[in-house]
């Protein structure tokens, strides 16, 4: 009896949700899955904000194929199972012809099998793990760089900065480990001695033990890969322990503005890689696009610290729309084919997709520009060597 009640409730609830999901056919939907709550909420929300700016701009210019675009943004709660659920919902219920997501590499990897199952392409806007584009999934199109690309782009600076011995401190997840692996490989190939490789839990706030070890190692440069909150703490604690090394932060989730605001004097003399330098929009490949994005961001009053992440969502939507336009219809297969020929002037640079991965099942990979900025006199500056 109680089970009957239970099952009736179940069906009723699901039926209710489907009624509330009734949609008009006048818009072209684009699915977005991002971590809006949970551990990655800060970054996920920045990316979502970036997508919304693009959505409004595109719709004000008339939309695409005569219709307006509609972003359906779902929260994947920084959790792989939820990421899969969001993709199921976006494809199954909202019937989106393409997706943008899922922020972290683990979340993206979790949804990749679904893309192949339902044959819907996804634009990967942030994830950095090499695996994503080398697993033989033809529905993945990544506009963000891999850690390998970042390390390669850094190579010419090794001699300029005079790095002789480097230590590593990275967060204990795919992002941190992947970055440390690629950078240490690149440094070794360039004759730099690699000292210690310390790790920390993504939620840790105290790095005194790791920093003490790094101090004892005696390297001249410390490569740190983690998110901005931990980076702030690392810089502050390094100062407390009188760690006199040059800090280079990698990964692009580092928001130098926020670091200066929160770490103050401790940030002085540090370097940060970024894929978009909002302080020098003129050195970017497409300054007019960069400025348009920044104006849109400031107009909406979003947190300035998020400029270094929001553009990922912004560019992703523009790429999506370019593909839809080239495809001529809101059909996943047509869009997937169209993505290969897409050339978009984005904040990331001139976006296009190269083939990467096993033959016959290649994924698309963009080659964005990588920049290095320095913090000097309390401001973000172009590095001088």
């Amino acid at each position, binding site marked *: 009896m109680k*089970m009957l009640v239970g099952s009736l409730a179940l069906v009723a609830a699901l039926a209710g949700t489907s009624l509330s999901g009734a949609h008009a056919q006048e818009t072209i939907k684009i699915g977005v899955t991002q971590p809006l709550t949970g551990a990655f909420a800060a970054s996920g929300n920045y990316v979502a904000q970036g997508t919304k700016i693009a959505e409004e701009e595109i719709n004000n210019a008339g939309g695409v194929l005569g219709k307006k675009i509609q972003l359906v943004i779902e929260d994947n709660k920084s959790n792989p199972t939820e990421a899969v659920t969001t993709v199921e919902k976006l494809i*199954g*219920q909202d019937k989106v012809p393409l997706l943008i997501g899922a922020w972290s590499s683990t979340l993206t990897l979790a949804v990749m099998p679904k893309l192949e199952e339902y044959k819907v392409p996804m634009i990967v806007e942030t994830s950095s793990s090499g695996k994503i584009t080398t697993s033989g999934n033809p529905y993945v199109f990544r506009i963000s760089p891999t850690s390998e690309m970042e390390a390669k782009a850094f190579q010419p600076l090794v001699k300029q900065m005079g790095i002789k011995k480097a230590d590593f401190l990275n967060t*204990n*997840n795919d992002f941190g480990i992947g970055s440390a692996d690629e950078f240490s490989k690149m440094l070794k190939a360039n004759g730099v001695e690699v000292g210690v490789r310390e790790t920390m839990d993504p939620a840790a706030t105290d790095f005194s033990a790791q920093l003490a070890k790094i101090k004892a190692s005696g390297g001249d440069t410390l490569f740190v890969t983690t998110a901005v909150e931990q980076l702030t703490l690392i810089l502050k604690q390094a100062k407390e322990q009188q760690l006199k090394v040059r800090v280079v932060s990698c990964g692009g989730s580092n928001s130098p503005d926020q670091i200066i605001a929160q770490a103050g004097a401790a940030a002085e003399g540090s370097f940060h890689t970024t894929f978009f330098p909002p302080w020098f929009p003129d050195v970017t490949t497409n300054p007019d696009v960069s400025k348009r994005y920044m104006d849109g961001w400031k107009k909406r009053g979003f947190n300035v610290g998020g400029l270094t992440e929001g553009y990922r969502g912004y560019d992703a939507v523009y790429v999506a729309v370019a593909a839809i336009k080239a495809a001529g219809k809101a059909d996943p297969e047509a869009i997937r084919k169209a993505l290969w020929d897409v050339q978009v002037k984005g904040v990331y640079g001139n976006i296009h997709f190269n083939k990467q991965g096993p033959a016959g099942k290649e994924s698309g990979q963009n080659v964005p520009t990588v920049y290095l900025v320095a913090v000097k006199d309390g401001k973000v500056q172009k590095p001088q060597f």
Partner: protein
Amino acid sequence: MTRFTPWLFVAALATVPLWMNDYYYLHVLITTGIFIIAAMSLNLLLGYTGQLSLGHVAFFGIGAYTSALVSLGFKVHIAPDTVVSLSPKPVWFAILCAIVVTGIVGYSIGKLSFRVRGAYFVIVSISFAEVVRLVALNWLELTQGPMALNSIPALTLGFGDYTISFLRKPQFFYLMLVMAVVSYLIVARLVNSRAGRAMIALRENESLAMSVGIDVTRYLVLATVVSAAIAGMAGALYTHYIRIVDPNIFLFIYTVTMVIMVVTGGKGTLAGPIVGGVVFGIVPEVLRGMKIVPEVQWIVYGVLMIAIVYFLPEGIVPAVQRALASGRRAFAGLTILTESKAEEK
């Protein structure tokens, strides 16, 4: 009526893939179903033996990883010169391994942890799950750590030319349903047996049970082994459905979900985890469908949890049972009243 209702329920569920075309709903039902299996196993520990285990997700995760590793194959150096390796095995074998391994882990943990009770046991169980998570996170050679084990194969069963692949949702739904029924039957058999009665006795009053000669540790360990094995099986199912596993599977929030399902449904009742599972598996998706901000969705979830626990502290199932019973009594009383009135005429 009561004897056949569960089977009617199962039969009704079996028809679902035939008419439910929306794969999103099927997905929600499948993941809810897998968590309900895990919740049923937790109910054995939490509801029937009365031990508040908050580390249950460890068994779920160990089952998931074992099955993934056996089906993918692995190679580890346990000492600088000694390598242990395994070539990929068929998925059904991997799932069996998962069940056995988790059962063994359950046995060891059971023997060790039941030196303490109550609040201490809660902490031990949480700590155990955390340590397992950290091992999965840091033992990169075996588990790939946060880089995750992906491309996990789906289950295929075949005899000669007949193969069924449990890759697509409708097939997987049936697999999940069968495993759920099997788990339910195992738990029901155990609970209604002599061992089960011993467990309930020690839940009610451990010292009294001991004085009557019940070997408390033995039954606690038995409950843990069965509970762990079922949870491990659920974890294995999960990993061959989602086809990626990373240390996030050990997140505390999953244990919380399972505990909520058991306690709000009605711990110590067989239907409890199912009803609780349905409610708390579906609720987040219903909330997602409503146009409210994610943080508020979570807040509503929290409020709902508190409300149910507050107003129905024994759970939904016992409350419904009581309501029905008093309904019957009222009805019976009414019948007698009207009958006697009729007689008086």
